[in-house]
């Protein structure tokens, strides 16, 4: 989990650095990059903590009331 958090943070810092130095008018891009990084971190942490009973398909099929 620590590796995951460090990896996503390093990638985020690299992306922000890349945007700052290579792309003009970068404010929007920085915001989207931050949102995507937060999503990636959230999904990574969820994967680290979840087990086979609560996969996304399990919830989708439960909502659609489909048994298998």
């Amino acid at each position, binding site marked *: 989990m620590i590796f995951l958090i460090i990896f996503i943070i390093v990638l985020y810092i690299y992306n922000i650095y890349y945007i700052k130095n290579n*792309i*003009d008018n970068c404010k929007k891009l920085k915001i989207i990059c931050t949102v995507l990084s937060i999503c990636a971190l959230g999904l990574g942490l969820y*994967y680290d903590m979840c087990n*086979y009973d609560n996969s996304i398909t399990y919830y989708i099929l439960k909502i659609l009331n489909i048994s298998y």
Partner: protein
Amino acid sequence: MSNDNGKISVRQSLILFLMLFCAPAVRYIPAYAIGKASQAAWLTIIPSFIFGIIYAFAWSGFLKKHDKKSLLDIINEITGKYIGGFIRVVFFLWITLLLAYYLRMYAERILTSTMPNVNIIFLLSIMIITLVHILKSGIIPIAKMAEIFFIIIVALFFIYNLLVLPEIKIDNLLPVTFEDTLPIIEGSAGFVTLFSYISIIFIFNDEIEHKGEFDKMKYSGLLVAMIGGLFFIAMPIAVFGASVSSKLPLPFFATMMQINIFDVVERIESGIIVFWVISEFILMAVFIYSAMHILKKSFKLNNTRPLTMTYIIIIFFLSLILAGSTLELKMLSESVITPLSIIVGYCLPIIIYIIGKIRKIV
């Protein structure tokens, strides 16, 4: 074709579509069609061809006046800013779900067919690292790569089908009666799902150089897809019969496992794995490129390169938490992905085309 103007040709985009068609066609089309229409499943190509013509007709209509515009811009022009924005979000979520599903399915298939003791994270990591690398350079290298691999894949496909010919029994494809009409139409939903992927390619239509070629090439592309589809479905039925084929998880793959030349050359199905992995790689690369194009168009960005890696990591985790087993993936495919793809990728563009026609925009 030279790509000096930074655009791909219509021929390249049709080859991309045929590559997108290959990977799910090996796995999904035979199992779905045989499950619905039994021994008459090979006839599903007839209604599918009709559905394909209707779809191609709608796209021709779009491209008549808007050949330099992305599908997203065309939708915006026809439906307005807010509905157009909502449709963009739907397209983005649909592509993300498809990507997570295909990435997971690729890994599951390799695990079950050839490498049962390998860690799934290792297989996924190899795929995403390669995707990140190829997507740095844009759509042109992907299209050129697809052109080269398409020739190899077509050659492999015909060689394998020729080798399996001694095993086929034509009687297994019969009888076909009028009572099979409804199951045949139902079984064609698999093909319609794959047709819907054309709309994913047309998301970056502004990067396709048209020159009026789509009208000339649309039927040939459709015909190639249908001939391929016929082999994918008819071969398993002809070799095993409908009842056995419907119980096999990968009927076409199992058919290729039957190749035996004078008891010397056998178990050469690994070529089909090459076929799968290459076409699935192209499929994922095109889908990620389209998703990035949606972000680029929606937020008017100059460059989406820094977002690609983070997006692929999201897909990586999403594919891991998508399902607990292959059974769940199969259920997701049948209950959610098939209807969703038909609605979003097939019906929605046709509805938008009709609205555009009424409003005299297309």
